[in-house]
């Protein structure tokens, strides 16, 4: 899924623009084909991201480019996901050593790929690494991500302390993702997710056999990354809303007020509002003898 303001464009119609974009930042191997293109979602879309892929019987490799003024918005992550989907489509045709590989020439991309399960295979220069992901790791990652997502919807709720902590720091700008992640990580929700998920013995043995990794440690690592990915996606959406969509939007809230209070003169309307008209139920609406008033 792409953040607001972007869309996937047809690669066939945008191959020249994508090649031009790639030429500015990376060297794409001549064996690679254009697989996906991201553009701005407007009448005259500009190409701002592209994915190039190729594969041999040993490995599936890919290159990603995102225009510098559109970075840190989740576009690279979206393109990596397209690459992973394509890898999964062809993986069964090859033996178990078939893996993904990518040449990385910036540290942000290296960090992103690590969070998605890739490992550094070889460090070529300070900012140049070759990274890989084994097929078994990929499979495990995807199995766990799916399960985690189901669990997360039921379990993941900030605790009361977690929320009140934010009010204490409420003031200036958008907190960094690192700050948000530190808070989320220390909440009970993540521990609940970890406790609720478990591999059975067969899955553990198979994973250990195929990767030589300790399944317990790996599972924890995997879950933390899967949770982190979910949190990061949501964070990017929220920051986009605040930076690009929020100002000037209509805003509503529903309140319950005592019958003897004139809604036209009710002075203090509270802090919990929504930019969706039906976004919230009447807040703390359990008081008796109240009437609901939807305020715009």
């Amino acid at each position: 899924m792409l953040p607001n303001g972007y869309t996937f464009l047809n690669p066939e119609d945008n191959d020249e623009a994508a090649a031009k974009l790639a030429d500015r930042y990376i060297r794409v191997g001549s064996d690679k084909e254009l697989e996906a293109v991201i553009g701005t979602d407007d009448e005259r879309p500009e190409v701002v991201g592209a994915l190039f892929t190729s594969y041999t019987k040993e490995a599936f490799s890919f290159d990603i480019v995102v225009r510098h003024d559109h970075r840190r918005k989740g576009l690279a992550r979206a393109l990596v996901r397209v690459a992973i989907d394509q890898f999964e489509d062809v993986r069964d045709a090859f033996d178990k050593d078939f893996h993904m590989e990518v040449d990385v020439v910036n540290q942000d991309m290296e960090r992103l790929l690590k969070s998605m399960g890739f490992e550094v295979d070889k460090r070529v220069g300070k900012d140049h690494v070759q990274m890989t992901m084994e097929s078994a790791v990929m499979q495990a990652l995807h199995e766990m991500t799916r399960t985690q997502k189901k669990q997360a919807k039921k379990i993941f709720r900030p605790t009361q302390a977690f929320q009140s902590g934010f009010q204490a720091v409420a003031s200036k700008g958008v907190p960094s993702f690192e700050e948000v992640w530190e808070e989320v990580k220390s909440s009970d929700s993540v521990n609940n997710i970890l406790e609720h998920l478990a591999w059975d013995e067969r899955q553990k043995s198979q994973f250990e056999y195929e990767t030589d990794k300790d399944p317990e440690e790996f599972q924890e690592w995997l879950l933390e990354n899967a949770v982190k990915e979910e949190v990061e996606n949501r964070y990017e959406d929220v920051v986009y809303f605040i930076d690009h969509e929020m100002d000037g939007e209509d805003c509503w809230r529903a309140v319950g007020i005592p019958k003897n209070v004139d809604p036209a003169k009710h002075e203090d309307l509270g802090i919990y509002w929504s930019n969706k008209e039906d976004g919230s139920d009447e807040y703390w609406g359990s008081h008796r003898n109240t009437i609901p008033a939807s305020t715009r």
Partner: protein
Amino acid sequence: MKIDRRNVDIPGTVYARMDMSIGEDESEVRMIQGAKIFVYDVEVCKSRTVSSGCSTIEINDWRHA
């Protein structure tokens, strides 16, 4: 009202929207306590479960969060 970012508790809004269960549904925008807000109208209903019988009162005036 229309949102003015100077009145918004930005960190509070970020964290409210990080809630995986309700964050997206509620689309919360958290105001700073006591912020001045311009209210257009109030729709008043006699029952919280039945939407009929509601009336809209024009406000067009400043209130507080």
